[in-house]
């Protein structure tokens, strides 16, 4: 069924991109990927081409921290990782859902990718659920109700969630 997976994965992502209110975010995400080998994921991380880190304020172990505006899960910063890295022994899920959060320092909106860390049981610390811009599960790239570890190499065991800046959420012209 691998061929089926690849086919429907591609189609699903295409539909998701086209049907999203924040389709522009998906398109930005695709552009950021640039020369990546598999430029299919609307919310894939852009590891080599990210803009400079945004100015920071707030406590990344608090649910109020600005990047967590659409997070749902245990904060990796409380679990041995940080707000943008996974705890030891876990594996990051490369695909995930995204949100758009306002940074209180510069007032700008940033695209945040909430990559799950996977392969161990739930961390159980700093549970945080905020739903700014969250959509139902039939719009997967915008839904924080989905266990995104399903897309990781170690499958669904979910440990915690990170909040990675993908870039500025520039308005559609």
């Amino acid at each position, binding site marked *: *069924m691998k061929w*089926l*997976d*690849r*086919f*429907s*994965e591609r*189609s*699903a*992502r*295409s*539909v*998701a991109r*086209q*049907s*999203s*209110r924040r389709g522009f975010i998906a398109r930005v995400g695709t552009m950021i990927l640039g020369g990546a080998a598999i430029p299919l994921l609307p919310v894939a991380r852009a590891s080599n081409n990210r803009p400079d880190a945004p100015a920071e304020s707030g406590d990344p172990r608090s649910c109020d921290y600005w990047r967590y505006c659409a997070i*749902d899960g245990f904060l990796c910063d409380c679990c041995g990782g940080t707000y943008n890295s996974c705890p030891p022994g876990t594996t990051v899920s490369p*695909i995930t859902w995204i949100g758009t959060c306002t940074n209180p320092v510069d007032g700008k909106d940033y695209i945040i990718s909430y990559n799950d860390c996977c*392969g*161990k*049981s*739930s961390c*159980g610390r700093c*549970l945080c*659920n905020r*739903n*700014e*811009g*969250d*959509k*139902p*599960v*039939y*719009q*997967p790239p915008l*839904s924080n*109700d*989905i*266990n995104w*570890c*399903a*897309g990781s190499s*170690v*499958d*669904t*065991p*979910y440990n915690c969630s990170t909040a990675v800046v993908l870039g500025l959420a520039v308005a559609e012209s």
Partner: protein
Amino acid sequence: MLRKLIFLSWVLLLPLAGQAEVKPESLPPTVVLPAEPNPHWVWVNDIVFHHMVDGKAYLVDGDSGRFLGMLSTGMGFVGLVLPSDYAQIYSPETYFSRGTRGKRTDVITFYDPQTLMPSGEVVIPPKRFAAMPTNNYSVLTDDDRFLIIYNFTPAQSVSIVDVQERRFIAETETAGCSLALPSGERSFMMLCGNGGLMTVSLNDKGEVTDKQRIKPFFDPQNDPVTEKAVRWGNTWIFVSFDGYVYPVDVSGGQPVPGKRWSLFTESERKAGWKPGGIQHLAVHESSNSLYALVHQGGKDTHKDPGQDVWVYDLKAQQQVRKIKLDKLSTSIQISKDDAPLMFSIFIGNPTLDIYDAVRGDLLRSVDEIGFTPTIMQTP
């Protein structure tokens, strides 16, 4: 030393002394549940979010508040699937060979509803959707013959199982569409990212014979319907974040979206009333009643708990009464009989509250019902 020996002899004699006065009981027998379920029973499903490898489902008698038994249902548990005759209980489950590692196996486990023992299983593709539970991820066709399981890897597909022959039939891809909503004896619908539907038709062997896409019937960007739709006869009731009802008639085979109506008056909407929760809707079929869990809140509060249940006459499309809950709630369910109970539970405080669904009176509370209870079902 002598004192120790005297003490030891007393200890050894104690059981004999007891035997002389009380007949010892036999090894405890295991309770067997009645063949006919009480319509006031409720199954409470628990994803056990802090220990997701250990999903559970609890059976509670709403009349007595008694905890009747439970099932152990594996990793990332969503919920049971109950056929209308309650002759078996079906449970879509996921297991890893080393607990949280190793080879993943997904199964439909069949449980005997009297003994709560497994009576068989069907292995399905290891792709079952892992997400915050709703009742619309695994469903039976209207004649209870085929079980449809929504998959997400993130490739989207469904698996089809013949529960009568206990056999996996096939997997079919459903690009862009999610959930599973039965629409007839040989058909089901899926909700698509563009606000439309996909209908899938089966033959008598459970094989897919047709797929049709239905054009969008709501605005998925500005006011999406929740995934938590409920069935009223041959009509599916979808409710949007802002509290608009989108009925979809499935009596004719293909779904026909009906005219939108509102749960709220304009003044109620201005006051911030919104639907919200995990299982925020329930239908009582014989009285044509819709129960909606509501709260006052701003944008993006579609998953917030509520402490109010507003009841609607689905035929008149009008609110008929309001029930004030004793506690915050994320899930409500109604029993199917003519003297219905309403069950209410909050994922953050696992106490099951049981109400008279007509009068709205709190009858009893049952505490310690799991850890993070999600959705409920009544037989």
